[in-house]
Every structure is written in C-alpha cells, then in structure tokens.
C-alpha cells in the first residue's frame, strides 16, 4: 500500500459567506473567496437550496435533480482560485420528496435557488509549498550595493 503524502498546510481566517439566487455554487464560493482575499479555502460548512442540482456520481456519471428547490443538506471540500489541486465541493442533497442523494457538485451547473450559507476557512501557504513551486521564501541578496 503506498504511503500517504502529507501536505504541509496551515489554515487562517474563517468567514461566513452567502450566495444569492442564480449564482453557481462553486463559482460563487470562488468569487466569495476572492473577495475575502483567500487564494485557497476549505469549505467547512454549508447549507441552502439549488434550483436544480447536477452531481458527479459514481466515478464518471452525472445525476441531475429537478427542483423547484433541491436542499443542500451538508457540503464540504476545497476551492482554489488557480491551479487544479482543489478537491471541489461534495455534498448530500435532498429532493422534493425528501429523498437524499450525494456526489460532487459540477462546476457551473448548480444554480442557487433562495440562498446558500457557507463557512470558508483560508488555506495559507507554508514554506514547503512555496519552495515546491520554486518561489523564494526570502528576498535574494543584492550584492551590488555591498
């Protein structure tokens, strides 16, 4: 069994955010993260409703649910403003009969119905992350002035 790779991260600020009607769930949370100055964030919590829902289910299938409102019962995940490392946002939803479904929320296909309330937690860079991306952790010395 391969060893798990530990990621050296730290978390920072915590913020409550709200999305309004017709905003896409994932894109809206990314906009909210950007407005807060969060480059990456954990989706710690969230609830609300979607007009219709589109979930990636199983390994590659798509499952669509029709409203008038699909309730987000719980959700969690990770968002990033750049790169493709984010896990995305997965959750459990309830349909108009009270039956529950689960999967990964497809980006751009989950418009908010009435509201979504969520809690985002900022992911901060640690030195190991910066080094791995080839960015200097301290300014290079300018010897011309010595």
């Amino acid at each position, binding site marked *: 069994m391969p060893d798990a790779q530990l990621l050296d991260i730290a978390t920072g600020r915590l913020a*409550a955010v709200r*999305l309004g009607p017709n905003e896409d769930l994932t894109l809206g949370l990314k906009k909210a993260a950007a407005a807060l100055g969060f480059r990456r964030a954990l989706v*710690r919590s969230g609830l609300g409703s979607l007009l219709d829902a589109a979930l990636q289910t199983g390994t590659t299938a798509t499952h669509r649910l029709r409203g008038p*409102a699909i*309730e987000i019962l719980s959700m969690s995940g990770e968002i990033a403003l750049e790169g493709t490392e984010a896990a995305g946002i997965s959750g*459990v939803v309830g349909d108009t009969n009270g039956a529950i479904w689960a999967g990964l929320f497809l980006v751009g296909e989950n418009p908010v119905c009435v509201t979504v*309330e969520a809690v985002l937690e900022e992911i901060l860079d640690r030195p190991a992350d910066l080094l791995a991306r080839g960015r200097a952790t301290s300014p290079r010395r300018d010897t011309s002035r010595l």
Partner: protein
Amino acid sequence: MLWLPEGLTLHDALTQAFAARGARTGAFHLLGGTLAVAAYHVAVPHAGSQRAVEYGEANLIEGGARIVRATGSFGERVGGGPLLHIHASLSDAAGRGHGGHINPELCVVGAGGVRAILMLAVGFHQVADEETGFSLFFPNQGVPHHA
C-alpha cells in the same frame, strides 16, 4: 463539542448551548444522535406565489430518526431573538434516508442526546430579502452579495 440533552427541542437545546457560551451568532454541525420527533420541510410547487419557492407542511418521520449529519447557521432574527437554519440528513427505522429543511421547534432530541460542534468565530443575522421574498441569513462581517 457538546451533547444536546434528551427531551429538549432542537431550538431550545441549540439556543441554550450558544447562550451558555455567550454567543449570539455562529454555525454548527450535528454529528450524530437521535431525534424522538423528527420533522422537516421540502419545497413544493408554487403556482401563483411571488416567491422563488414555497415550503410545505412538516414531514414527520414515524418513530423518530437518527441524525446522519446536520449543518446549521445561528443568528439574530429580524426584530431580535435567536434564529436557527438547519438542514439535515436523517435515517429512519428502516434505514431509508430523508433530508430537508429541519423544523427546530418541532424536532425533539431523543435518547442519548445529539452530538454537536459549535463554531463561534463566524455568524449571521437575518435580513428581509426583497429579491427572494424570504427573510434570510446574511454574514455579519458584511461580505457583499456576489451576484
């Protein structure tokens, strides 16, 4: 992390738990436990309604339910007083899943209590929202609406 005690409504148990910590706003998760009375709402067709959606009468799960997971927001109601917004995944006696908008005044904590994690660092307050026709929670720190 705490236990919500058996016999209280979810509304009373949660508002007392936040009040005991001096918090008037927050967010929370319910990790498990049972509800002796389990009541939730789902959206229903809304011909003629001015609002985006309407919610029907409470669905009661016969015999109560087990909480699989619940997510909630806590804050001040328009006009003052505590308000809870909770969505939950529940399991009935046959193992069938149910989910929806929880009615915290009707739900009663069952035998063994309900396990909860409170997050006190964030919060919401209710605002009468003209766009949707509902009174909704908005973040306290004034994060703008990203329409």
